[in-house]
């Protein structure tokens, strides 16, 4: 799954990406590891509360030195740390594509017995 996140890092403005479950468990990271990734995931969870509360899927918040972007999916969340000048509208499109890919990866092709 990390490979999908590396696709996001191909973009100049994207510095780090973390994919987490809805409750903040890290699924994959790119650009950051260890405690930094955990911090990013926790920040994403915090931002998610704010975003979901407003009925949105996407949200961003400016921090010192960068911008934190969050895209909430059905099962996963994508947290991206970018340069301050990163265009949010374009980024959310790219993130959405990656999130869709991640969802496909974890989703079965659906041959349950029911």
């Amino acid at each position, binding site marked *: *799954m*990390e*490979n*999908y996140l*590396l696709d996001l*890092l*191909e*973009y*100049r*403005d*994207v*510095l*780090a990406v973390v994919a987490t*479950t809805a409750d*903040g*468990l*890290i*699924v994959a990271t*790119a*650009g*950051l*590891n260890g*405690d*930094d990734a*955990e*911090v*990013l*995931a*926790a*920040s994403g*969870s*915090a*931002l998610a*509360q*704010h975003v979901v509360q407003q009925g949105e899927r996407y949200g961003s*918040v*400016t*921090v*010192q*030195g*960068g911008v*934190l972007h969050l895209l909430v999916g059905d099962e996963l969340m994508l947290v991206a*740390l970018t340069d301050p000048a*990163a*265009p949010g509208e*374009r*980024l959310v499109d*790219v993130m959405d594509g990656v999130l869709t*890919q991640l969802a*496909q*990866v*974890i*989703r*079965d*092709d*659906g*041959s*349950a*017995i*029911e």
Partner: protein
Amino acid sequence: MPALLLAEAVQQAQDAISAGDYRRAVETCRQVLHSYPDCVTAHRLLGEAYLEQRDEAAAERAFTAALQRDPQCVGAYVGLGLIAEARRDSEAALAYFQAAWEIAPTRGDLRERVVRLARDTYGPEGRLQLTRAALGSIHYHAGRWGRAVSECAAVLAEYPGRVDVRLRLAEALWRRGEWERAAATCRAVLEQSPGAFGALVLLADIERRLGNDEEAAKLREHVQAADPDGSRAAELLAAVPDRVDFFLPAEPPVVEEVAEPTVDVERPRIGPAPDFTAPEIDETPATTWQAAAPEPVIPVEDAADAADPFDVPLPSDQELEAARPDSLSTAGYTGLLRSLEDSGIEPFDAAAFGDSDAGPPPWVLEPEESAPAEPEPAFSEPAEPEPLAAAAAPAAEPAEEEADLAALLGISSDQEIEAARPDDGPLSGYTTILRSLEDTGLAPFDPGLTAEPAAALPDETPEETPEPERDLVVPDVAAEIDAGETTAGEVLAGDWDSIDREILEAIPGEMPRGYTDELRSLDAAGVEPFTFDEEEIPFFQRTRQDDVLPVAEEPAVAEKGSVAEESPVAEEAADTEADIESLEAADLPAEADVPAPAADAADESAEAMLLDEVDLAGLEEEVESTLAEVDTAGLEDEVEPVPAETVVDEAPALPEYDEAGDAAAVSSAIERLGVGPDLVERARDAKEELIASGRITGDQPLEPAAETAAAPVEPETGEPEGVDLAALEGAVREHPESSEARLALAEGLVEAGQAETALEHYQWLYRHAPDQSEAVIRGLIRITELAPESAPAAHRLLGAIYRKRGDVHLASRHYGLAVSRAQGRRGERRG
């Protein structure tokens, strides 16, 4: 004990554990296991009961037995983890809890336990890892059987001994309908753990589906041994309820009565019960009797414990005395008294002190009041020998012996205690303190000496034990105020100076501190004492929800220099999870956020000291005056808004949404978590490392140019200018082993838009010309850019090349891209 239904017996065991009656739970579980030795639930409950009894060895055996029968028994893993923790084997404990969490990853308690244990074991590096086993369980519970299969298979490739994961794999395969694979996996589970309940159930079901009814029936017998009532099978087969009936018993299973073996085991502890009706026992020589019952007193001591679980009828004291041979009559309690008598010690006799109506011993009556206000040597230790004497003297010895014993032991009689007590009644509780002050010459505070005698508290009758809570009850005072018996102005009419003078007169030469000084300072600060209005919850009792203030107010509070700017909880958060919690807390105001004078920590501590130091009368007066003031100030006009200064007891109104302020609060909270310039810089460095390693280029712009870059380039058709494909193909035919000719043809085919054909030549080059790998890589990347339909194959070949080079990261990346591109293509075709 009558026979019980199994379900009832299990419920009884659970109830006994919940009630703390672990001994009973153990007995019940043993009874169940006597009838159903493989009952998983009984083994687990037995382990839990043993664990509560701190019998770790027995608990470990029980939990292990449970796991042998159910490799996914979370409770057993938890129990073994707790045992390992108790043995300070943190790594083993972590392993058990990790296994439990991997089976049930949605359980927050297990997750927290794993996080804590990981941190305790490995320090800051220890954290919860989303393992493949846990991921497999997550996928399984989410209905993604295929993903669960792949995750579990990956785990088993690395850890083939994980029977719980193998069972999960079997479950996932069974849910996918892959009967053969599921059956094979179940058999593998049963090889590792022959009694594995889940594997038996699945295998039996599969055999039924495959028409092997005889084999299914055999398996069902094993299933019913482990799950007699079929409850767990029904749980496992919940998705296909029509398959459950096969595993349900024809009759409800019953637990047979097994009282005898249990009692036989325990009976030696209490000794054989004598046959009190048999006359020959009295004629038995003492030596023989002693040999038969070496500890005849023990049954009496164990009577309370033994009666309940075993229901053994115990003899009365009279029966014991009658059955006791003369030579043994000095044994037991009376024996002790007789030995004391032999040594010249006389028992205590209350009647000897003139109290013919003494009744029960003095230690039975009002033990608190018997404590003297001024201890005298004679009263120093009156209660130490009481239990033995209280239990034995009334039943065994005449009352006159008590007097002598009491005199000898120096125990005071009731009369002596009463004589030593002041005339106006027993001392106790708060009045004791007041009276002791009175004895030292300190006159109590008299509100009547102040301007308004009406402020006096209700009379306190010294005969009654005061109840401080009762004195603070609001409705009494409020009712008094409502009734017009007093007014707010009357409650505290005296000024602080007059109160000081009052106290100064009472304590000559000593200026009291901590009384009116504190009250005066609070009064001067405008702090109003507590109110206990039902509609106003004290701040220390509020829930978090009550305390919610607008997030948008946080910056404003911070500007005021409030401590809310840096939440102490957030500062102390050491790990990510704590950070999340602290972040939640950061949205809530700390107590100090409440803009009220009483929120000042110093004032709070001052109030606490005040409550400790102030005397009862002063406290009551203060409370009354406060209530009265509150009444006059606000009760008549409840709709009037409470001033901001008295917001201590005000329930804050829910804020209106302020998006800008909310975002600012989230931003600051996230920065407090550690997302700041340093982290951004580290991320930048990490990305540069990725670029330097060649894993990414990292130079695509996000602006429309990216769209151009991402847009698939239309493949050029036809033969490009300057490329003679025929000549290149002829060269390859002439020199089929020439890598240069192959490479040239492949590149020409790519440029000509014939990616499929080019791939064949690149594959040849991959196998036969490793020295051309750089050129092959370039050509394959070109294919991924120009020919989306061939991209999966190109990525797959790129992954193979990088794998051969040993670059696992790039290999996995291209393999992943191959999968995703292929899925994308399939999706397009389906669409």
